[in-house]
C-alpha cells in the first residue's frame, strides 16, 4: 500500500501539466469554440509529440501499456485547461475496442485512434434496434460527434463500429452550451454495423474509462478554478486590502479545497481500484463520477462569484469552467443516478 505517485507518475503528471498549459491555451480553446469545438493543433501534438493518446492501450497496438492512474493523470491535466479535445472520446472508444473488438478491429483502429489520425466516439442506449444486419434508431448527446470518424455504438448486449459516411448514418450537432465539447445526435437508418467479438468486457471497459476520465477532468478543472481564484484574490484590492484577506472570501476558498482534496482521493482510489481489480471498483467509479462533478460545479460557480463582474464576462475563462462542469455533471449519467447505484449496493433496491 502506497497511495502516492511513483517517480514515473510524478514525471508524467509534470509533463502533461506543462504540455496542456502550453498548448491548450485559452486562445486556442476559444478558436476551437468558435468553430467545431476541436483544437486540432493541440490534439495532433498530444497524440504525436507527447505520444500519450493510447495510455491504457497495450503496446502491441501502438499504446503506452500504462494504467488507469496514468490515464487519470492525463485527464486531470487536460481538465485543468478545459482543453477542447476529444480525450474522453479517445479513452472510451479505444478502451472498448481493446477490450472487446475483433482482432481485425483492434489492428485496424487502435493505432489510428492513438495517433490521432481518426477520431472515435462511443455511445450506448437500449432503444437502438438491430435485426441481425442493420441498425436503426438514434443516439443523443454524443460528445464530439461532429468531428468523429468512427463510432462505437452499443446496446445492452452488443456493440458495433460504424464509420462516418456509412450509408444511412447522419450526425446532427446542435449549439452546445459547453462549446469545448459539442454534443451531437447520431441517427441510424438501416446502417450496417461491424459487430464486436466480445461485448461484456467492452462495456466494463467503457464504464471505467468514461467515469474515470470525467472524474479526473473534473478534478483538474476544480483545482484550476481554485488556483485562479486564489491568485486573483491576492491581486484585487477593495476597502484598502486584498480581497483574499476577507474571511468570508477565504473560507469559501478553503471550502473549495476541502472538496477538491476529497475529489482527488476519489479519482485515484477509482483509478487504483480499476488497475488492481479491487472488489470495490464499481463503488469507486460511481463515487468518483458523482463526487468530482459536483465538486467541479461548486468550484466553478464559486469562481464566478469570487471574481465579481469580471467573472461574468465572456472574456474571462470562468465560464468555460462553469459550462464544462455543468456538462460533466450530466454526461454519462448524473450524480443522483450514481448515488442511487451506491444506495442499491448498500440498501438493496428501493421497494
Amino acid at each position, binding site marked *: 500500500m502506497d497511495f502516492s505517485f511513483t517517480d514515473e507518475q510524478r514525471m508524467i503528471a509534470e509533463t502533461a501539466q506543462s504540455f496542456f498549459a502550453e498548448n491548450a491555451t485559452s486562445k486556442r480553446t476559444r478558436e476551437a469554440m468558435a468553430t467545431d469545438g476541436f483544437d486540432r493543433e493541440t490534439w495532433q501534438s498530444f497524440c504525436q509529440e507527447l505520444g500519450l493518446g493510447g495510455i491504457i492501450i497495450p503496446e502491441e497496438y501502438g499504446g503506452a501499456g500504462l494504467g488507469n492512474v496514468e490515464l487519470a493523470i492525463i485527464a486531470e491535466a487536460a481538465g485543468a485547461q478545459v482543453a477542447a479535445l476529444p480525450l474522453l472520446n479517445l479513452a472510451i472508444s479505444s478502451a472498448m475496442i481493446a477490450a472487446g473488438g475483433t482482432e481485425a478491429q483492434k489492428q485496424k483502429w487502435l493505432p489510428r485512434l492513438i495517433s490521432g489520425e481518426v477520431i472515435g466516439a462511443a455511445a450506448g442506449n437500449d432503444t437502438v434496434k438491430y435485426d441481425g444486419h442493420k441498425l436503426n434508431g438514434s443516439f443523443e448527446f454524443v460528445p464530439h460527434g461532429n468531428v468523429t470518424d468512427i463510432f462505437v455504438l452499443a446496446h445492452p448486449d452488443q456493440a458495433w463500429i460504424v464509420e462516418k459516411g456509412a450509408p444511412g448514418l447522419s450526425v446532427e450537432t446542435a449549439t452546445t452550451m459547453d462549446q469545448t465539447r459539442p454534443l451531437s445526435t447520431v441517427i441510424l437508418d438501416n446502417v450496417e454495423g461491424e459487430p464486436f467479438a466480445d461485448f461484456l468486457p467492452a462495456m466494463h471497459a467503457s464504464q471505467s474509462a468514461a467515469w474515470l476520465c470525467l472524474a479526473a477532468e473534473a478534478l483538474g478543472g476544480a483545482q484550476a478554478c481554485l488556483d485562479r481564484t486564489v491568485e486573483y484574490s491576492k491581486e484585487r484590492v477593495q476597502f484598502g486590502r486584498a480581497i483574499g484577506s476577507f474571511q468570508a472570501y477565504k473560507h469559501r*476558498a478553503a471550502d473549495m*479545497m476541502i472538496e477538491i482534496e476529497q475529489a482527488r482521493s476519489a479519482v485515484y482510489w477509482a483509478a487504483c481500484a480499476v488497475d488492481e481489480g479491487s472488489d470495490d471498483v464499481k*463503488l469507486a467509479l460511481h463515487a468518483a463520477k458523482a463526487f468530482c462533478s459536483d465538486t467541479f460545479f461548486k468550484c466553478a460557480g464559486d469562481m464566478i462569484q469570487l471574481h465579481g463582474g469580471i467573472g461574468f464576462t465572456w472574456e474571462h475563462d470562468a465560464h468555460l469552467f462553469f459550462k464544462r462542469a455543468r456538462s460533466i455533471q450530466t454526461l454519462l449519467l448524473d450524480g443522483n443516478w450514481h448515488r442511487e447505484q451506491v444506495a442499491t449496493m448498500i440498501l438493496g433496491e428501493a421497494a
Partner: protein
Amino acid sequence: MKLGFSKAEEDFRAECADWLTGQMAGEFSDIKGIATLTAKAERRKEWEQQLAAHKWSCIGWPTEWGGRGASLAEQVIFAEEYARAGVPGRVNHIGIELAGPTILTFGTDEQKKRFLPDIAAGKTIFCQGFSEPNAGSDLASVRTKARLEGGKWVVNGQKIWTSLAHISDWIFVIARSEEGTKGPKGLTFLMMPIDQPGIEIRGIKQINGDAEFNETFFTDATCAEDSLIGAPGEGWRIAMGLLAFERGVSTLGQQMGFRNELDEIIAAAKANGSANDPLIRQRIAKAEIGLHLMRYGALRMLSNTDHSKVDGAALTYKIQWASWRRSLGELGMDVLGQAGEVTDNPDYDWGTLPNLFLYSRSDTIYGGTNQIQRNLIAERALGMPREPRGDT
C-alpha cells in the same frame, strides 16, 4: 501508486483481527461496543494493560519504548481491525496519540525512559491542558502562569474543557513562564502529575448528559524542574508540533468507528422502511462515499513522506471528518424520526444514534473549530493573506 496490501500484510490483518475479536468475545466482552469516552473507565485501563502485555498498545513506536516498530501499512491495518472488532476507543488516546509522540520527538532520553513505556502500558493516562476560559481558538493568549522556584515549577491558573482529567494521572499544560510576554512567546510546555493538592478538577456536564471534560484549577501546583519539554519559552513550538500529531494513523481507526455508526444507520433505515425513501437513499449514499473518501484521504496523507513542506491536503482532513460526522448525526436522527427523540433510559443515557447526534456537535469545535480550520487552510495551504489581530 498502489492501494492493495501484500500477502504478509493481509496475514498480519488476520492476526490482528483474531486477537482482537478473541478478546472482545472473551475476557473483555463487557467493554465491547462502548461508544463514549468515559464509560467503564477502570475496566478500560485494564484493557490498556492487556494491549500492552501483548505488545499491541503502540505498535508504531520503536521496540525499545514498548512498540513494535510497525510499518505504516501495519499500523493502518491494526487501527482498522481494532475498530472493526468493536473495541472501544483508547482511554489513553491523548497519551498515546499526543503526549507519546511529543515526548518521542522533543523529549530527552530521560523523559522517554520515564514516560513512554508507562504510556504504552496504560499506567500513565494523560490529558491535555491547553484551553483556558479566555484562550480557546486563540490558544496563544493563555494566562496560566509558571515560575521556577526552589528547583520546581510552580503553576497557577485555570484550564477548561480538559477531557478525561478526572481519570488521568498526568496533564500536559502550556503556561506563561515569562512575565510580561504576550501571544506565543514566553510559554513553556510542562508535564504535571495530577494527584497533588494544588490541582483541583471539576466535571462539566455536556449536552449529551455525559461529563467527559472538566475545569482544572492550579493553585501553587508543582512539578519537577525537568518536567518541561523543550526549553523554557519554547512551549508554543512544542504545542504546535503536538497538534500536528493529531493527523496521524489513529484517524484510520477513528474512521472504522464511523463505519460502525453508518452501519447502524443503514440497519435502522432498513428496519423502519426509510431505506425506501429516495432522499434518504441519496444521503446514505453520500455518507458512504464520504466515508470512503476519508479513508483514502487519510491513506494519501500517511503515504506522503515529504515533510519538507506543509502538506496542504492534510490540513483539510480535520474539517472534512468533523463535518461529515456531524451530518451523519443528523442523518441518523432523520432515519430514526421521532423515535430518536425518546428513550426509556431514566438517566438521559442515549443509544448510539441519538448520542452521535448530540456528541457530533463537538467534533466541529474541539481540536480547532471549523472556522479555525478554514483559516488554516486558506492561510497555510492556499497562502492567502492573514487576518489582522485585534489587539496588536
